[in-house]
C-alpha cells in the first residue's frame, strides 16, 4: 500500500492508508481526538478532505478500512455489494458523488436504485465533504418506508417512540408515562421500554403489559422491551408476545462482540420474531440503536474514525430489514461528542448516511448533563432533522428520562414539529388518535381540549378529580 499524499505549497501531507485519510477528513470531534486519529491541524483536515474528494469510489471496493479476514462486518459489506446498482456512479470520485447527489434529477427513485451499490464507507466518505445543508437536502430526498402494524416513513409523516422508562420498572409508573404520551399523540414508531432490571422474567412481564395495552385499546402500533437480543429470543421461546426485537449494534466485529452479538445471533432473532407473524401490515421486526463512539468505547475501532464505524453499523443493520433504527447521538458523553456543535453535526451525518443506505433512520436527539449542550442545541438538531425528513424521534415526559438519566425530546417537542411542518403521525396511528378524540377532528387545534371519556374512566380514583 503506497498510501496517499498531497502537496500544498512547500508542504507534502502523507496519509498511510484509506482509514487515515477518512479519519483526518472528519469534521472535528472529541472521540477521534481521544482515539488519536483526528487531523492535527485545521489545514491537515481540509487537505485530507481534498485527497478524499479525489478518490474514485472503486477505491472502497479494493481497499477496506478493516481487513476482510478480520471482521465480519467488512465481509458482509463486500459480499453484499451490488455491482449492478453501483453502475450509475461507478466512474465517480467521492467529490463527484457529492455533486451527483445534489443534482435535482437525483430524486427518490434514483437514490433507491443506487442504494445497494453504495457501501457504508463510500457514504461516510462523501458525508465528510458535505456541509450540513447538503446532508439535509440529500437525506430529505431519500424515501424509506417500513411497516409492522402501521407505516413508518410516508412523506409528510413523522413518528415518535414513546419511551415510558421508570427507575424500578414499576408497572403503574410506566403506565402513567404511557398514558401521558398517548394523550399527547406519541407512540406510533413503537412503545419501547428500557428495562431497569435486565432479565428474561422482567422482559416477559413488561411485554405482556404492553401487549395487553395495545390489544385492549386497539392501538395501531408495536411494542418493544429494549433488552439484550438473547433475552428476547428466550422470551419468544417462552411464548412471550414479542413485536420487535431490539439490539444495540456497532460497526465492527469487536464492537458487536462487546455487545454480545453477531450477525448470526441477529439473524436467528429475526427469524424467531418473524415466526410469530404478529405484524398486521408489514414484517419489519427489528429495532436497532447505534451511536458514534461505541467502537472506540469497546476498543474495537481499528484506527477507523467514529463516524465511519457508525456508517458500517448501518451496513450491518440493512441486511436485517429493520422497522426502525436510531442513532443515540448525544448519550455517549463529551469524550466522544464534546458539545452541541459536535452533537448536531453527528446527528445530521448519521441520519444522512443511514437514509442513503436505505434505512428507516430516526434519531435520539439527546445530551447528558456532563456535555456542553442544552435544550437549545436539541431544538436546533430537532428542527434540522425534521426538515431532513427524519423518520422518528423519541418522546418522553418533559424531556427527562428518570431511568437513563439523560435528556431527549419530549411529547411537546414532537407537537412543535407537527405545528411547524404540518407533519402527521403514521397514517394508521393518526386515524386512531382522531377516532379516540385525542387529536382534534378539525379546526386549527392539534389536540382535543377534553380528555376522552374512555381514558378519563381509566384513571385511578376517577370521580375524585375536579
Amino acid at each position, binding site marked *: 500500500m503506497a498510501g496517499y499524499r498531497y502537496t500544498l505549497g512547500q508542504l507534502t501531507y502523507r496519509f498511510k492508508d484509506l482509514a487515515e485519510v477518512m479519519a483526518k477528513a472528519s469534521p472535528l470531534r*472529541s472521540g477521534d*481526538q*481521544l482515539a488519536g486519529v483526528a487531523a492535527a491541524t485545521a489545514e491537515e483536515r481540509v487537505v485530507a478532505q481534498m485527497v478524499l474528494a479525489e478518490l474514485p469510489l472503486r477505491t472502497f471496493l479494493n481497499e477496506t478500512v478493516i481487513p476482510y479476514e478480520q471482521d465480519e462486518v467488512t465481509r458482509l459489506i463486500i459480499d453484499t455489494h451490488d455491482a449492478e446498482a453501483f453502475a450509475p456512479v461507478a466512474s465517480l470520485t467521492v467529490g463527484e458523488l457529492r455533486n451527483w447527489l445534489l443534482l435535482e434529477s437525483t430524486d427518490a427513485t434514483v437514490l433507491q436504485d443506487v442504494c445497494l451499490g453504495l457501501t457504508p464507507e463510500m457514504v461516510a466518505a462523501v458525508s465528510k465533504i458535505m456541509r450540513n445543508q447538503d446532508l439535509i437536502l440529500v437525506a430529505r430526498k431519500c424515501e424509506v418506508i417500513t411497516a409492522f402494524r402501521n407505516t413508518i416513513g410516508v412523506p409528510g409523516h413523522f413518528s415518535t417512540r414513546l419511551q*415510558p422508562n*421508570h*427507575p*424500578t*420498572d*414499576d*408497572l*403503574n*409508573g410506566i*403506565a*402513567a*408515562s*404511557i*398514558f*401521558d404520551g398517548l*394523550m399527547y399523540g406519541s407512540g406510533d414508531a413503537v412503545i419501547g421500554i428500557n428495562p431497569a*432490571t435486565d*432479565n428474561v422474567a*422482567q422482559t416477559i412481564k413488561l411485554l405482556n*403489559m404492553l401487549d*395487553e*395495552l395495545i390489544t*385492549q385499546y386497539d392501538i395501531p402500533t408495536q411494542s418493544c422491551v429494549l433488552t439484550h437480543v438473547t433475552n428476547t429470543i428466550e422470551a419468544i421461546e417462552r411464548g412471550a408476545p414479542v413485536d420487535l426485537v431490539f439490539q444495540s449494534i456497532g460497526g465492527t466485529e469487536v464492537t458487536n462482540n462487546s455487545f454480545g452479538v453477531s450477525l448470526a445471533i441477529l439473524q436467528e432473532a429475526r427469524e424467531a420474531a418473524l415466526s410469530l407473524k404478529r405484524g398486521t401490515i408489514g414484517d419489519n421486526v427489528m429495532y436497532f440503536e447505534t451511536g458514534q463512539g461505541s467502537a472506540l468505547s469497546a476498543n474495537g475501532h481499528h484506527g477507523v474514525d467514529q463516524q465511519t464505524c457508525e456508517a458500517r453499523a448501518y451496513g450491518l443493520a440493512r441486511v436485517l430489514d429493520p422497522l426502525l433504527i436510531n442513532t443515540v447521538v448525544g448519550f455517549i*458523553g*463529551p*469524550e466522544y461528542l464534546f458539545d452541541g456543535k459536535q452533537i448536531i453535526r453527528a446527528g445530521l451525518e448519521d441520519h444522512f448516511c443511514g437514509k442513503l443506505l436505505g434505512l428507516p433512520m430516526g434519531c435520539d436527539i439527546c445530551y*447528558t*448533563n*456532563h456535555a456542553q449542550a*442544552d*435544550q437549545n442545541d436539541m431544538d436546533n438538531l430537532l428542527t434540522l432533522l425534521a426538515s431532513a425528513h427524519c423518520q422518528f424521534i423519541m418522546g*418522553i*415526559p*418533559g*424531556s*427527562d*428520562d*428518570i431511568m437513563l*438519566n439523560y*435528556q431527549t425530546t419530549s411529547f*411537546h417537542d414532537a*407537537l*412543535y414539529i*407537527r*405545528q411547524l411542518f404540518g407533519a402527521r403521525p403514521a397514517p394508521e396511528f393518526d386515524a386512531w388518535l382522531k377516532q379516540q378524540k385525542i387529536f382534534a377532528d378539525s379546526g386549527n387545534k*392539534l*389536540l382535543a*381540549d377534553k*380528555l376522552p371519556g*374512555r381514558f378519563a*374512566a*381509566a*384513571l*385511578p*380514583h376517577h370521580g*375524585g*378529580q375536579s
Partner: protein
Amino acid sequence: MSHQEHHLHTDTWQQLRELTAARIGLGRVGTSLPTSELLKFQLAHAQAIDAVHSPLNGELLCEQLAALSYHQQPLTLHCVKSEAEDRLVYLQRPDLGRKLSEASTYSLQELREKELFDLAIVIADGLSATAVMQQSIPFLTALLAQLETSQPAWTLAPVAVVEQGRVAIGDDIAQALNAQMVVVLIGERPGLSSPDSLGIYLTWQPKRGCDDAKRNCISNVRPEGLAPAKAATRCLYLMESARAKQLTGVGLKDRSEDNVLTDESGQGVFLLRGT
C-alpha cells in the same frame, strides 16, 4: 403556581404523578411547554451542570470521615489525584481519570503493610461531587457498622479520597496499597432529577486494565433512590459473596438481585383495568 398561569391548558391526569417521578401532566400552552414548567426544567438542568462542575471539598469530606471509626479505630485517610489535572481534561480524557498520578502512587505505596489488606475503600468525585459530599458519609457509616459484624474480620486499608477520578482508578489505588478487594464510591452522571446519585463499584483482585465485566455495581444511591443504609447491606452481601467465591463481576450475579427492582406487588395496572 402553574394553576395561576394564563392561557394554560391543564392536563386532567395530574393524579398520575403519584405513580412516577417522570414529568407527566405538565400541561401546555398551545402545544408547547408552559412558562413555569420551562423554568423548572432550566433550574434542574442548571443544578445538574453545577453538580458536574462543583469541586470536591476534600478538606470537609476528610473532616467528616475522620469522625468515623472501624473497630474503635478512627479511619486513616489519604487524599490523592488522578492524571486529569482539571475538570475540562477529565471530561474529555476518561483514560487520564482512570490513572492514579505518579506522586499519589508513591505516597500510597508508603502506606503498604506487610500483609495484604482485605479491603480498600476509595471515594472519588466522578461526575458529581455533590453526590459524594451528600451520600458517602451515611453510606460508609452504615457499611462500617455492618462490616464490624462480618467474620472473619476484614482488614481495612487507608481510605483514599480522589479528585478527578473514574471507577477504574480504584484498581491503581488497590494495587498501590496492596489490597485484595476495592470498593469505589463515586458520583454518578447526574440526572435532571437526581444530581446527587452515588454509585458503588466492587472489584476483586483489582489491577490496571481490569475489564468492567469483572465488577459489580450498586447504583442510584441517594435518599430518593436506593437509601444509603440499604445500599450498605447490599454492598456487604456482595463483598462477602465475592470473598467466598474469590471473584466479582458477571459470575457473582446473585439471584436476589434480579428481584430487587422488580415490581412484585401483583396489583393491577390502572390503564388495564376493564374498560
